[in-house]
């Protein structure tokens, strides 16, 4: 359950639209169902009152949309950012993807977002509506007469259970109170995989990655993936779409996708959220983050604007790739 309400956000947006500070508002609107909330651009107050939503399914990170919207929209854009989204915002600024003056950031507190897959695990399929009530979610399904109530805490998305920070690193204005950077257990799962034997690891990833349908949603949603031309759109790359009888193309795609954002990934977890096959893609990104922390010192992408990413930096006494393996783990 979120502490702030939809009405609070609409009031804020309406007043900023009214006094001309901003010309449009980047927020969320209801999709086909209560839980597939999509990002949307609003230009008038009436539009806002009609369509704007805010709730436990507003997990979408709006910062990437600024790249295209700031080019189209005259004047400033109001954007609502949760603490983890502000890291992506800073990272995009570091890479000069849009003009800071064109964005008006309203930081909003976040109590953690719900994951519809976890709701489905508890309540089954055929969910027709989900509404928040106190610290519970009321779920109605097509098959049950009585609505099912689940604790909001029990259906938190993985990335929110292991929330890395409740502190906004960029904002023009804040609604509610700012939080703290948290120490989370987000690398535990990576460490568990590292401790496996290579055969087990291979089996794990073969199982996960072979589910991939190459919809490219993970790439399209990623706030770090903002190239206008992508290597994976090249038909001669051999991996531009799903191969009929092979698993190389998925491995190649996922290794390279994660590699291209290594050192720039803020670990916002959007890739795993949008994956229609529920592949734990964040485990690939976190492996890079963990390695970078281990080898080159702790680095949080987006924590400050203008910091130099680890892969475009070096020191004279960096670790040799061979030494990396001497540090432990198991080989085949």
């Amino acid at each position, binding site marked *: 359950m979120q502490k702030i309400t939809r009405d609070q956000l609409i009031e804020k947006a309406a007043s900023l639209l009214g006094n001309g500070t901003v010309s449009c508002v980047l927020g969320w609107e209801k999709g086909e169902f209560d839980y597939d909330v999509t990002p949307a651009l609003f230009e008038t107050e009436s539009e806002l009152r009609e369509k704007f939503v805010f709730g436990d399914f507003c997990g979408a990170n709006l910062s990437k949309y600024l790249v295209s919207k700031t080019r189209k929209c005259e004047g400033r854009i109001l954007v609502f950012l949760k603490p983890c989204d502000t890291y992506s915002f800073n990272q995009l600024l570091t890479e000069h993807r849009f003009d800071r003056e064109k964005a008006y950031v309203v930081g909003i507190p976040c109590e953690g977002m719900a994951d519809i897959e976890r709701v489905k695990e508890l309540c089954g399929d055929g969910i027709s509506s989900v509404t928040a009530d106190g610290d519970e979610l009321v779920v109605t399904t097509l098959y049950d007469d009585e609505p099912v109530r689940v604790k909001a805490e029990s259906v938190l998305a993985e990335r929110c259970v292991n929330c890395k920070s409740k502190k906004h690193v960029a904002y023009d204005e804040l609604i509610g109170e700012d939080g703290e950077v948290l120490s989370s257990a987000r690398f535990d799962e990576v460490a568990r995989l590292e401790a496996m034997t290579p055969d087990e690891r291979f089996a794990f990833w073969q199982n996960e990655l072979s589910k991939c349908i190459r919809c490219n949603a993970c790439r399209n949603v990623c706030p770090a993936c903002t190239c206008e031309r992508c290597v994976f759109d090249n038909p001669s790359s051999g991996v531009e779409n799903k191969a009929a009888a092979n698993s190389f193309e998925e491995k190649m795609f996922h290794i390279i996708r994660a590699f291209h954002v290594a050192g720039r990934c803020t670990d916002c977890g959007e890739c795993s959220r949008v994956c229609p096959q529920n592949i734990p893609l964040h485990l690939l990104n976190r492996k890079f983050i963990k390695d970078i922390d281990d*080898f080159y010192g702790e680095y949080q992408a987006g924590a400050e604007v203008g910091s130099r990413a680890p892969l475009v930096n070096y020191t004279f006494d960096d670790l040799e*790739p061979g030494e990396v393996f001497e540090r432990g783990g198991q080989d085949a």
Partner: protein
Amino acid sequence: MQVKEYKPLIVAFCCNWCSYAGADLAGNNRLSYPADVKIIRVPCSCRVNPMFVLRAFQRGADGVIICGCHPGDCHYTSGNYYTRRRMALLFSMLDYLGIERDRTRLEWVSAAEGAKFAATMNDFVEKVTALGENKRLEDLRCKK
């Protein structure tokens, strides 16, 4: 029936200024290293994109080795420092996905180290031969 002896296919990316000249020196000195090593000359070890490494595996390589100038000796001042970070992360990621560690290597070979070049290649080919065919990163579409 005669069993064909297994010969690995090794791709070696060699930097133009040091390692490629090192390979040349190994030849001039009549030092032998297996013919399974196919050398690809690159302007700098930093030219090697992680995709090159994966692409080599896709097209049937059993091992990929990248050779560059010793740290501090890069013709372009700092190229090999970037290579070092990049490859450390890439190799670690391949390991994380369960690909055998001995299939990838980064080695610094200068133009004066013909003997080191030959020894490195001999050692690398031996290790890859022991691992056998690359099954985990192969692309069936590229099989003849």
